């Protein structure tokens, strides 16, 4: 364990964690500020070793919760949970507003303006400049080279989007289970290769084609992770995800 030699004089001495070891602890402890937290959560999604380290700290710290005296939740809370988890054909679910959709049922979307009409299986096309001149399309039908697909799911496993990347056309097609509409936040698509930082593929306007820059096509290859985060209007101000990551999925050849 690296020893921090820069500790102020008179402070408790002893080894101090640094780097990834400290990051895993700090994610579990809950001290990371928003952007660092998002970045660490993304790493958890793609690095099993890092995830295991975070989980070890979570388990170590969990007994502290025994300290917190229970507080009864309001009586109506169960009814709300029951309504949201009811089977699709049960009376409780049938009574839900027609616009209730998989997007809206997600934790992340609650509390925002949800006036948007549900658009079942709405597809949007993200146009990217083709990386190479088009090969004769008739031929490509027989054996399209390395078409890539990813299923993007929420943290709880709920599928949200299907993404297909066509290297011949240089396009990503995202098929959403539904669309959404709120005033404050926009979904932004990211690609993450190995331990590289997330690279933006652009802000997604559900239901509308979005043109992406040339650099958007870089890194879109098998094994890379696609992720969608919620960002301020206009996209992340920092070039890295700053809002909640609502969906992730791994690209693999079709």
């Amino acid at each position: 364990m690296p020893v921090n030699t820069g500790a102020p004089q008179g402070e408790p001495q002893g080894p101090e964690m640094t780097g990834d070891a400290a990051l895993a602890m700090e994610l579990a402890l809950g001290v990371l500020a928003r952007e660092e937290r998002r970045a660490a959560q993304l790493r958890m999604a793609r690095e099993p070793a890092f995830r295991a380290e975070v989980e070890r700290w979570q388990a170590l710290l969990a007994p502290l919760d025994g300290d917190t005296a229970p507080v009864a939740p309001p009586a109506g809370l169960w009814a709300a949970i029951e309504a949201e988890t009811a089977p699709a054909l049960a009376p409780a679910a049938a009574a839900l507003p027609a616009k209730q959709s998989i997007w809206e049922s997600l934790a992340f979307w609650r509390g925002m303006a949800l006036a948007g009409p549900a658009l079942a299986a709405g597809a949007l096309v993200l146009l990217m400049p083709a990386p190479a001149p088009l090969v004769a399309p008739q031929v490509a039908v027989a054996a399209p080279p390395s078409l890539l697909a990813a299923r993007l799911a929420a943290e709880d496993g709920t599928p949200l989007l299907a993404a297909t990347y066509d290297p011949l056309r240089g396009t990503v097609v995202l098929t959403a289970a539904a669309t959404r509409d709120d005033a404050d936040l926009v979904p932004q698509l990211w690609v993450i290769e190995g331990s590289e930082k997330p690279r933006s593929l652009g802000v997604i306007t559900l239901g509308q084609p979005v043109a992406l820059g040339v650099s958007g096509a870089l890194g879109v290859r098998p094994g890379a992770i696609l992720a969608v985060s919620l960002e301020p209007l206009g996209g992340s101000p920092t070039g890295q995800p700053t809002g909640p990551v609502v969906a992730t999925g791994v690209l693999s050849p079709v």
Partner: protein
Amino acid sequence: MSGAAELAALLAKAADGDRVAFRDFYDRTSAKLFAVVLRILGERGEAEDVVQEVYVTIWRKAAEFDSTRASPITWTTTIARNRAIDRLRSKKLRPAAPLDDAGMVADSAPLADALVDSARGAVAVHRVLAELEPKQAAAIRSCYFEGLTYEELAARDGVPVGTLKSWVRRGILKMRDAMEREACR
């Protein structure tokens, strides 16, 4: 009393779609989860929203629960703490005095110790915290229970961020080493 084995059995039934078991799981765990979330968020309305999200997630992910990796209550409180801290970070300002709020509305239901992984684990973690230097222990507790960032806690306590970070990192390392020794006893 809700032992880990009973809670794990209820989760397994919930994973198979057993809504009665899920309700039972909720009844046994919700006061603890609500308290943990309320302590972080400091506001009942926000805490209710988050706890609702947490149980919807538990229902959907019940099949993913793996008792070899975590106890049921560690699994559920981890989901709850994560959601609460995500919510806290997405807000610009932190409401004042969450600890007092949480204390004021404390419920007297005798569940406090029932949901701890094991009485032994809880005793051990507190014995270990008591062995740390008080400022290290206090910093770790504030971070964990209130969801404060280093910067926020440093500003509140009037301590340089680097110093506070050092207290937490060194203190928690000692805590882990001591917990590992406890586990070997």
